[in-house]
């Protein structure tokens, strides 16, 4: 029969000779292999102390963006919720009242915006669907939690810090990114 790979090797069914039946050399060989492994580099990353660097295109937790004046960009059009294949996003729209121009960029805004991180598959289609550059996937992932409720992220968790009123937090959250 034609071998399927170049590494195929027929099983040797010859009876063992005396040297092989002593087993001690084979055991010694095996033990030298395990001993050698003691000094190999460990692939494990010590997670909370050390974090694996993510690639720039990593799709992690969502953030809701603000513009340069600190106004929320989201206009609650619902395109992200429609695009979401996991149906993880819900929102409620509200009308901007006079005097709230410094809070919301458009006349309509999201009064409630929730993403269920347990349903989310982090595909990034919401990011692509958004016409207002309001939603982005960041380079962090959801921390563990004791309850399911804790995985439903509202506007408080999602909105980035205001660059005007909270410049320190904004600079910290922005980090090395540009």
């Amino acid at each position, binding site marked *: 029969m034609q071998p399927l790979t170049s590494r195929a090797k027929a099983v040797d069914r010859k009876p063992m000779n005396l040297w092989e039946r002593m087993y001690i050399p084979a055991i010694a060989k095996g033990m030298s292999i*395990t*001993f050698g492994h003691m000094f190999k580099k*460990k692939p494990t990353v010590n997670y909370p102390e050390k974090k694996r660097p993510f690639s720039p295109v990593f799709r992690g937790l969502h953030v809701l963006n603000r513009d340069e004046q600190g106004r929320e960009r989201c206009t609650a059009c619902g395109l992200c919720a429609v695009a979401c294949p996991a149906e993880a996003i819900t929102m409620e729209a509200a009308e901007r009242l006079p005097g709230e121009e410094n809070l919301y960029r458009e006349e309509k805004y999201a009064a409630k915006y929730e993403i269920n991180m347990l349903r989310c598959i982090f595909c990034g289609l919401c990011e692509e669907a958004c016409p207002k550059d309001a939603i982005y996937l960041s380079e962090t992932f959801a921390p563990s939690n004791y309850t399911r409720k804790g995985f439903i992220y509202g506007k408080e968790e999602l909105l980035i810090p205001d660059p005007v009123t909270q410049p320190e937090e904004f600079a910290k959250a922005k980090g090395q990114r540009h």
Partner: protein
Amino acid sequence: MHLTLLAFDWVLLLEKAVLILIIISVSLLVAMYETWGERKVAAFMQDRRGPNRAGPGGVFQPLADGLKLFMKEEIIPLSSSRFLFVLGPGLAMLTAMMTSAVVPWSSHFHLWGRDISMQIADVNIGILYIFGVVSMGVYGIMIGGWASNNKFSLLAAIRGASQIISYELAMGLSIIALLMITGSLSLKTIVEQQQVGHYYVLLQPLGFLIFLICAFAECNRTPFDLSEAENELNFGYHQEYSSMKLGFYLFAEYVNMFISSAVMATLYWGGYDIPFVNDASLVQSMGQNPVAILQVVSLFVKIVIFIFFFMWVRWTIPRFRYDQLMRLGWKVLIPLALFNMLATGAFILWRG
């Protein structure tokens, strides 16, 4: 009556009591850290990191494990034989600890004008005592497995018992060859002979190999851990046990490992003798007490090496099948041990 009581050496009694206390706590401490060491060695051999969350390098892991075992619910099955069920783990632990009585941990300390021997009991039949106690260890397994009233536990216990009994034979025969050279059953005398002459592993390499393999079997360690073959017998003879009763069984295994390492080091690797150095001349230059401490350290280094070897083998070699185990014990090790015995006897006769 009063005179005989007064003539009794009460300080000796105190001395021995303190020594027993120290040795028992040290063996428990060593057993504790063996669990940590085992997990670390296993991890390193599998390119993992092992426990490293509790304290630096995970050194408090055994405390956490112990606390967890204490916190667990203590379950005694209704259908079990209650008294024997409790007796089983106690017996396993007791026999594991009792062996340490005849092991000489160092030569002696010279304190307050007394020579304090570092051996609990220098009985002249030390090796026989060890054999007697070790063969009692099988009762811990057997009683525990039987009292659980569980088919798998009983099966595992029978496996363990038959394995220990078969390997004890080869172990005894390999020791006979050693005893023909030493001419003494006292462990202290055997160590003193090795301090002057060669380590007996040089004279008895085959005997040592047989003894080592049998020690693995006696401790129920891989490749001979058939009594807790978890994929065949769920969990082995301690399946029905929980909480610290289970802890006692697991602990007894590690204490056994420690003690059998100590016995192996004593019989074949010079015991507390400091290698490459003449201990007697060292006593002349440094005094008795520092040398005695060095000897304890030397014995412990040997023990740690053996314990590492136990773990190393465990994480390298797969478990034997039952027929392979019996074949190795009865058809290979016993004839080999007999041959070793005859060869040693012939050698002694030839040398005169």
